[in-house]
Structures are given as C-alpha cells and as structure tokens.
C-alpha cells in the first residue's frame, strides 16, 4: 500500500500551492507519472477521496498523464517501448538501449477557485 504515502505527498504539494495562490478550493490536479514509478492509478484515486475529505482539495479531479517507459537504441537511435520481455532494439536487435522517458513523477499543475467564486464543477 505505498499509494497512501504517495497520495499524501500529492495532497501536501497541492494544499501548499493552493494556499500560496490564496485559493479557496482546488478543482483539478494534473499529475505526470512515468512508467518507472510503479504507481497504481486506481489506488491513488481511492486514497485521494479519503484523505482530501474536509480539505480545500475535497472533490478535486485527479488527471493522470501516464508517460510509458521509452528507450532509445544507442546503435540505430530507434525510440521504442519495451515489450516487457526484452530491452533489445526491435529494429536492429542491439542491446544497451537507454531510458529516455518514464522517470516522471510530479504534480504538474492545479486548478484553483477564487475565495468568492460560486460552486464550480465537481
């Protein structure tokens, strides 16, 4: 269950930035999660609903942008997503490809509502 501390980390960042922006409420949170992070989206959503209760982020929509693991062949420069069995280049067969995408693990941005705003969309 490591999604709980991860979700707490997300909430901490979100509330900090919402507070600094003088916002009354957070309506959306955009996350960028690479394939190397091992984070289960459904578990984060489950934790999110529980821990945001009573906070300005209650009801905020979580938007996941998943960045799949992508490798670059060092021989022929082909970019490819590994098939889970091998990291060898599908074009030329060479080993030793390098990770170019998939390490992302951040909160990209949040949507916040003004203190005097009417109730926004759920």
């Amino acid at each position, binding site marked *: *269950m*490591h999604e709980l*501390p*991860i979700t707490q*980390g*997300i909430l*901490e*960042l*979100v509330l900090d*930035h*919402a507070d600094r*922006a003088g*916002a009354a409420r957070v*309506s959306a949170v955009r*996350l960028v999660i690479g*394939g*190397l*992070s*091992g984070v289960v989206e459904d578990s984060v959503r489950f934790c999110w609903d529980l821990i945001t209760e009573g906070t300005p982020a209650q009801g905020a929509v979580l938007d996941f942008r998943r960045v799949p*693991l992508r*490798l670059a062949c060092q021989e022929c420069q082909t970019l490819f997503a*590994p098939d*889970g*069995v*091998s*990291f*060898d280049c599908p074009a030329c067969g060479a*080993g*030793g*490809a*390098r*990770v170019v995408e*998939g*390490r992302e*693990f*951040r*909160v*990209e*941005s*949040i*949507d*916040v*509502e*003004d203190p005097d*705003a009417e109730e*926004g969309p759920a």
Partner: protein
Amino acid sequence: MTTRVPVVEKITKANDQIAGINQDLLDRHGIFGLNLLASPGAGKTSLIERTLALLKGQLRVGVIEGDLATSIDAERAAAAGAVAVQINTGGGCHLDAVMVSSALAELPLAELDLLIVENVGNLICPASFALGTHLNVLVATTPEGDDKPYKYPSMYSRVGALVVNKVDLLPHLDFDMDRFRRGVETLNPGVVTFPVSCRTGQGVDAWVAWIGAMAREKRPPR
C-alpha cells in the same frame, strides 16, 4: 473563477527534504550510509552478517533493520557485531525518511563509520523513498530469475550497486546471466555488480573491499 497554478514539483518532495536532513546528519558524523534493497529472502541479512564479519576491527558499523513486525534481523545483526536498531513498519511496505530519522536518534553516531539500512523486503516501492543514505544497493538472487530487471525496472534503475546473491546455485538453475546483465545495463548503465554467495562466501570479499573503501573515503561511487 478558475485559475491554473503551475506546480511542477516531485511528489516525494516532503520525504526528500527529510532525507536531506538525515544525510546532513550522517555527513556531519562522517558516516557513509547504505540502503539495502531486495525481495524477501534474497539474503539481505546474510549479506550484512558476512559484511560485518569481514569489516570487524576495520570499521564501526551501525545497522537499521526495517521489518514488518519482528526483531529477528536486528538480533542477527547485533550478534554479528553491529550496533543495531529495529524499525517495525507495522505492515508498511517500505521505510521512509521519517522512520530512519527516528532510528538515527537511537544510534551512537559519533562511534560509527558505516550505516547499513536494511529496507523492507519488496521490489516495488522502497527505491522511490529516499532515506538520506548515500547509496542504494540492490541484492538480486539467481533463483528469482533473469527476468527481474524487465519486471521491476523502477528498482533496477535506482540503485548505485548490485549484489547478485546465490550464485552457488547457478548450476541448478536456468538463470541466464547475459540476459540479466543486458536488462540491468539498459536501466542502469555501468552499475557496479558483485556476484556473491552468502552461503559459501564466494565473492563477498570483493563486495566488502569495495564498500569498505567507499566508507573510508565517505563518498558514493561514480
């Protein structure tokens, strides 16, 4: 009115900050810190016992044992000559910087040269949570299979050294070292690798010589 506020910060920021404080504390005491990661049964505690035996009289070693509920591992480390502290995560699947911070307060830091943190046995999340140690070391084993780098790329990409334990079993297994190494090389180019057997002692001296040198120089590799 809705306003978009850019954040662009790592989700683990809060943990990373406490890890930074832990590392400052270790640095002030001239302690080199290792975070030992592996699946359950890989031989983390056995590697610690072997390492302690070979470092006896050379370096003063503290051990923080992360475990779900028992203190068996801490007792083994203490019996092998280390100052050992147990952290029970109560079912939690990894150690974090706060837990290590509490454990550090229980150790006689002024009397230590090397700190070994044995993380909870798990290949999924422990590598995502920095502890403040200087080096992540993964203990892989031959019976687990040569496909583990492909199945757990996150773990394999975040370690600074790799110990491959149970190489004495290779004649009985289908473990393809070349396939294993190719996977590791993509995720973690040039990572230093030590094939060992904690049962026979094979290869352990090379690992201990390397880690001992690192602890004396107080710096991470590469």
